[in-house]
């Protein structure tokens, strides 16, 4: 590592309960956005047996050692750290692909986090789905937890369960990211709004991310969308990273794509205000 002096980094676990809501994408993009802001960041893939964070970052060909090699002493910590291709202050510690979640204990995770926080400003842990041992390991060394959910019934229900477990673990109240919002569906009343979701979960909103094709194309290429200046989702992740740095960034207002009728109505002076309101979440700030 470049920096020799010790820092006291923040350990943040990104989790969700339900699988497939965007934990790994969120972890990769917050890491990239924080690193782009000049912070030193290490991403820890705690989804042992289902390694994915390396793919999202496009680093899958560089893996030699993994997290289980570190805790079992087969390599030194820095040997398992893969430096990102684009950002020289972003590192990844990959999960093991051929082991299971019992390969690491909560004590080992805590020790690893303590070691990492002396070297990095941010340690972001990508939690596995579920509420079992893998999840418990992922929050064992955390200072803060971010819960990712989608605006649909089962992922919000699982998020609620996670909130309860995080509180039972005596960690601070987690903050919420609502991912994959489709503004057009929200406008039609066929998708819960960010407001609906935050009201139900009653935890602080950290950010909202629109459903965006650019996430798919960026993931296909192994490039974090947060580094794409033109992407709305990328902007959303950059906003969240800024909030993690303590900045007061207003929540993104998601506009549904205008249909011909709606444009006409608006031109005639009707119905200009409704759509922004329907999608916007829990107040500004």
């Amino acid at each position, binding site marked *: 590592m470049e920096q020799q002096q010790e820092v006291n980094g923040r350990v943040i676990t990104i989790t969700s309960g339900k699988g497939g809501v965007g934990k790994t994408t969120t972890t990769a993009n917050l890491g990239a956005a924080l690193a782009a802001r000049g912070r030193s960041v290490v991403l820890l893939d705690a989804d042992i047996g289902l390694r994915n964070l390396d793919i999202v970052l496009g680093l899958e060909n560089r893996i030699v050692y993994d997290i289980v090699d570190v805790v079992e002493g087969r390599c030194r910590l820095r040997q398992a750290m893969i430096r990102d291709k684009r950002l020289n202050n972003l590192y990844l510690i990959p999960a093991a692909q051929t082991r299971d979640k019992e390969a690491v204990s909560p004590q080992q995770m805590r020790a690893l986090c303590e070691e990492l926080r002396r070297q990095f400003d941010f340690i972001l842990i990508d939690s596995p789905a579920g509420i079992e041992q893998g999840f418990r390991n992922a929050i064992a060394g955390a200072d803060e937890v971010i819960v990712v959910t989608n*605006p*649909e*019934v089962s992922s*919000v*229900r699982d998020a*609620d*369960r996670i909130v*309860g477990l995080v509180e039972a673990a005596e960690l601070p109240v987690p903050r919420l990211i609502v991912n994959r919002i489709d503004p057009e*569906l*929200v406008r*039609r*009343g*066929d*998708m*819960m*709004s960010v407001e*609906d979701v935050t009201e*139900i979960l009653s935890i602080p909103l950290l950010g909202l991310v629109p459903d965006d094709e650019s996430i798919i194309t960026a993931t296909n290429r192994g490039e974090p969308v947060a580094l794409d200046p033109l992407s709305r989702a990328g902007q959303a992740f950059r906003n969240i990273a800024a909030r993690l740095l303590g900045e007061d960034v207003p929540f993104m207002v998601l506009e549904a794509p205008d249909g011909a*009728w709606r444009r006409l*109505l608006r031109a*005639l002076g*009707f*119905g200009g205000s409704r759509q922004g309101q329907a999608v916007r979440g829990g107040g500004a700030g």
Partner: protein
Amino acid sequence: MGILDSLFGRRNAHRPQGSAQVAKQRLVEVLVYDHVKLTPDVMEAIRDDICRILSRHLDVDVDRLEINILRTERGDRFVANVPVRRSGTGARVRR
């Protein structure tokens, strides 16, 4: 925008509410039960007990007895709706 709405928004007129409201309502209900940790079995047992006790004193319409846990601003609330028959007439009393 009433007139224009009825002209262009006719498709929605058949649906009293969007599916998002349905989703929200279902979520609120399921979370109440998740929080209170009541299984349908336990709810059924509570229902039976209520029927048994009230039936000692009242002519309870057992089939229409409803119990629910509702989420309110002041916390979760157990609510029972117990229809009773007027003695002798067999007519049902509305709530």
